[in-house]
């Protein structure tokens, strides 16, 4: 298993390399440049040229990429933002916390709702509860998150004045736990609704498939309680396909962060991404891109490891592969 993980990490390196190259090229092909943001077009051409030299934008693209890569590999340095002159690494780190907090909470809550609800729906197929859960899930999937987000802000912030509509803390406030929690509620509801909505259905159908299996009859014939038949014997098997989809949730959430963080002015990676794209902040975009690629690869790896943990057949095939 460890061998397998190491091998996967080694394979990830060329993938990351490729992703950054492609991103570099696409970014440069897009119209506009950080110069437009920094320098007034009224300035003489010489001044603009000087700025270009300062930012290293006058050399050919492959030379720029080479410099960027050399800096990253030799010094672990992602460079400085072309707009704010802050260290990109530092910026990413400071925005990472809020995003992980928001996404992590929503993922955990979403799964905590989806699994029991999906299992109940499956064991009581065509019951009222099943229909209610399926309708809820349908809404969770089909209502766009920006719409739900704006709706919630309208009701709970503008009309009822119960919850703040944006930011992570009150401006000038203490920034205590309660403050952050109050700011988290609305965005977490939006994200949880979509995570739960997507996964309830999946858990349900995966359980339904397992419920007809013969080994459950064996478990019942042993005299096992129905509760354990479902939650021990059936669940452990249903978990195998569920784990795969859950692993995919992480990149989905990460991508969705752009929209949600924008709506709720949440100071996370998504917001940083959007603002650096707007200002063509090349070095920050490259850094964010690398992080995104890393998250996807890590999520995949995590999925595979979990997969092996819940499915003994996979675990053994890895061990077999490692031995040979």
């Amino acid at each position, binding site marked *: 298993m460890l061998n397998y993980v190491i091998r996967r990490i080694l394979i990830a390196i060329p993938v990351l390399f490729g992703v950054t190259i492609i991103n570099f090229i696409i970014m440069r092909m897009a119209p506009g440049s950080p110069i437009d943001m920094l320098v007034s077009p009224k300035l003489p051409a010489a001044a603009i040229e000087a700025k270009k030299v300062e930012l290293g934008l006058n050399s050919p693209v492959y030379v720029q990429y080479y410099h960027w890569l050399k800096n990253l590999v030799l010094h672990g340095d992602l460079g400085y933002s072309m707009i704010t002159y802050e260290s990109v690494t530092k910026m990413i780190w400071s925005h990472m916390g809020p995003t992980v907090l928001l996404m992590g909470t929503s993922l955990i809550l979403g799964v905590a709702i989806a699994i029991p609800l999906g299992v109940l729906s499956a064991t009581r197929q065509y019951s009222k509860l099943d229909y209610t859960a399926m309708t809820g899930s349908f809404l969770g999937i089909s209502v766009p998150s920006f719409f739900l987000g704006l709706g919630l802000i309208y009701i709970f912030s503008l009309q009822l004045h119960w919850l703040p509509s944006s930011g992570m803390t009150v401006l000038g406030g203490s920034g205590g736990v309660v403050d952050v929690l109050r700011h988290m509620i609305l965005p977490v509801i939006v994200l949880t609704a979509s995570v739960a909505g997507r996964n309830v259905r999946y858990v349900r159908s995966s359980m339904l498939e397992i419920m007809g*299996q*013969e*080994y459950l*009859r*064996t*478990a*019942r*014939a*042993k*005299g*096992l*309680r*129905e509760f354990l038949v479902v939650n021990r*014997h059936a669940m*452990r*098997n249903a978990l*195998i396909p569920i784990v795969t989809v859950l692993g995919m949730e992480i990149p989905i959430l990460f991508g969705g962060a752009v929209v949600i963080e924008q709506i709720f002015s949440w100071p996370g990676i998504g917001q940083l991404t959007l603002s650096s794209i707007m200002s063509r902040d090349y070095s920050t975009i490259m850094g964010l891109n690398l992080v995104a690629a890393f998250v996807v690869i890590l999520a995949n790896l995590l999925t595979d490891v979990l997969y092996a943990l*819940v*499915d*003994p*057949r996979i675990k*053994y095939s890895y061990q077999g592969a490692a031995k040979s």
Partner: protein
Amino acid sequence: MAIVGESGCGKSVTALSIMRLLGKNSRIDHGNIVLDGTNLLELNEKQMQEIRGNRISMIFQEPMTSLNPVFTIGYQMIEAIQLHTDQDKKQASASAIEMLKKVGLPRPERIMKDYPFALSGGMRQRVMIAMALACKPKVLIADEPTTALDVTVQAQIIRLMKELCAEVGTAIILITHDLGVVAEIADRVLVMYAGQVVEETDVFTLFDRPGHPYTQGLLRSVLHLDADKDARLVSIPGSVPTMYQSLKGCRFHNRCSYATEHCLSHPPTLEATQQGHWTRCWEVEAAASSERQSGGGVSS
């Protein structure tokens, strides 16, 4: 006790009814299931769980899918043992290894840690037998336990079940298509057709003087080693009707050569024709005498 009958006649349904494990879409309409004086149909689900795996165990037809693929053999064995005894994990594990040894599995300690996918069909069926007998049940229901196995393994498994059950003091209800197996291990035989018992008798009477026309047909359709080489293998024409409830008269009448007008409209009842021999047929006399004229039953 063996239950025989062709595919779809309700053998598995009968077995699952005894365990009260039929799905939600079915119910037991009438009748009693009595074990040691207790009517199982009057027990609640909790009491029934006490019975399952403890006093009545069951082995299924398909060993490849009867064990949970994500748990080790040891886990599944220990779970079964701990459900009905108050042994701790260690004792239960020792009993499990003991049982695996008894069913003739090599290196039982190793097998305890194996997952089902690592075992062959025959080995899995042995594990199922070990698991089913772990709590020394009164009755073992084996629903075609060897159908999915190859022939050499079949004989071993049947013999193993017979020996172990004799040792533990367990009665076997064996469901099978294989009349050879019936002849080898059964004391009494129940012949089923279209969801009903059509004949019940001891094994010798069954092979010598089968009462019901269906049983006669069943026996005639078996190939014999001492048969003339130009003798033809007989088959019963037609097939089992599917909608039992819509049938008014005898359920076998469309395939029966003794059928009369009476059979068409009146369902026969299970009557004792002799001591310990019940048959569900209006024309037992006629069937029996013609059977005798045609050379009698089959000696085995």
